[in-house]
């Protein structure tokens, strides 16, 4: 194992998954440094979300290993993976619609709030202390995106862009080492996207965590990612800095289509 891999927050090797006879992802090897912002791009259907689902325990990989901070997370459930330090957002927004904005964030803080069911029912001192702490922490986290004023609004009444931001705050509340963002800028206008880029960088700097994001908005990807992994048909076709990716013949071909290779 190289030094770079040893320090990495997440490494995968030979990761792959089959659905029936179809190989969706194969030979997926990456390593993410502790405060790196990594982009995962590729044409539609390339297997990007499938990769996220494998990393977060939603799908069980058919082969290969996933190592998070030296721990093997390949056979963990989504809950265990979250506790191990990976948090994510979803391509199709998944908020707790009927709960308020603050309560959504408090769900992220669930593991962090230390009082039991009976302290809650009996309203013991630990309930009041911990609820106060989680309330303050929730507002603090919402403030990253300037959403503290909307704490009491029901999540499903937020505008689209704000719902995406709330998902990120909720993921951050679980205190992750690695944040996976699945198309965070989808449906956002250019100024919102600009704001989002700033905030992703700010999150990385303030929380000292690694971020991996799937995104189709190339301005965002090229603007904030330090490294980019390009997948097509479930395999990595290129990897490197934004400049390298922009000039990579295979990437251009994957996106724009090129002459058929004879192989």
């Amino acid at each position: 194992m190289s030094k770079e891999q040893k320090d990495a927050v997440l490494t995968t090797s030979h990761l792959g998954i089959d659905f029936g006879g179809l190989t969706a992802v194969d030979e997926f090897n990456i390593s993410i440094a502790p405060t790196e912002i990594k982009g995962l791009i590729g044409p539609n259907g390339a297997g990007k979300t499938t990769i996220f689902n494998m990393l977060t325990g939603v799908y069980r990989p058919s082969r290969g290993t996933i190592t998070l901070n030296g721990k093997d997370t390949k056979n963990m459930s989504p809950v265990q993976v979250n506790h191990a330090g990976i948090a994510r957002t979803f391509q199709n927004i998944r908020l707790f619609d009927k709960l308020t904005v603050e309560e959504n964030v408090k769900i992220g803080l669930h593991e962090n709030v230390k009082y039991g069911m009976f302290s809650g029912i009996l309203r013991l001192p630990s309930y009041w202390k911990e609820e106060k702490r989680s309330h303050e922490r929730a507002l603090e986290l919402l403030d990253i995106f300037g959403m503290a004023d909307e704490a009491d609004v029901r999540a499903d009444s937020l505008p689209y862009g704000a719902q995406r931001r709330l998902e990120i705050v909720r993921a951050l509340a679980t205190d992750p080492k690695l944040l996976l963002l699945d198309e965070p800028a989808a449906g956002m206008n250019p100024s919102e996207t600009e704001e989002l880029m700033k905030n992703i960088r700010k999150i990385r700097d303030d929380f000292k965590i690694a971020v991996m994001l799937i995104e189709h908005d190339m301005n965002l990807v090229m603007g904030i990612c330090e490294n980019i992994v390009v997948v097509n048909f479930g395999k990595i076709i290129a990897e490197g800095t934004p400049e390298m990716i922009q000039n990579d013949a295979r990437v251009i071909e994957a996106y724009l289509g090129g002459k058929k290779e004879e192989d």
Partner: protein
Amino acid sequence: MEFIRKLKKHTKVSFLNYGIVIAFYFAVQIMAVTGHLSNSLKGQLIPIVSYVIVALALNLVVGISGELSLGHAGFMSVGAFSGVVVSMSVADSIPNPGLRLVIAILVGAALAGVAGVVIGIPVLRLNGDYLAIVTLAFGEIIKNVMNCLYVGVDGKGIHVSFKDTASLGMAADGKILINGPMGATGITKLSTFMAGTILLVIVLVIIQNLVNSRTGLAIMAIRDNRIAAEASGVPVTKHKLIAFVTSAAIAGAAGALYALNYSTIAPKKFDFNTSILILVFVVLGGIGNMTGTIIAAALLTMLPELLRKFADYRMLIYAIVLILVMIATNNEKIRSFIRGIGKSAKKEDGANE
């Protein structure tokens, strides 16, 4: 006033519910003292309280946890018969009826809770309609088990048989407590309206404090989006089970309270119709709405008695009332009218907000 305004919305709702229950208790007491309490209503007080409690318990599953259970009468049944057996078998050693009632309710709740765990672990792997069908089946199983259950007590302790009374093998001094399809007979009435009201307040405290805690929030998060809840590190099965078992235990406590109000109680009392009746209370009161559930359960339990003077037509009128309430509560105009009342009331007490 400043203090009231500062409270959170759900805290206000909780106190409103305690207020309703306590006001109902005192209203009944005043009616009793002034001689306005009719005999038929007097006889209905404990059933009303019991059904309110079961409806609240079911609302925890249906409204908060978002799972449809059609077997809650089964948990009531477990609580009812275990409560009866316990209260009668300790009759000699514990003469105080109040204490015996408390023990009966606690044992009824505990055993119904155990039944909740046994049923909940396999059932909560299912979702939606499948879960409803399986809980329905479990309700029927419990009813049929109770139908062929014989329990007796003598000097040597409690005897149980699933065959007949003879196979209990009782000593001469023995007493049969549960006699198969005949159910429990010769029950000493222990339930009082006051005990029922106290139990109801305790149940309200448990449910409302549970819902407004970290655990309740997790349960509601799973209801709203299971996948996101898992990804946020909230264990799903554990929280579904907490809601289901708490609900089952409370239903058992209500069953014990209910059974100890009668001298005889048969297993067929707790059948599918009763499960549906409880669900009707929850749906009409508003899924997830505890205040509505209390009012709906109380009114709908009283309604058949109040309609007694219409004799043959009373069930017809009952059905029409159900339909009208359903139409009314689902009508956007009526709902906004009710909201309007709420808003103008708020404006009056908080003009500087």
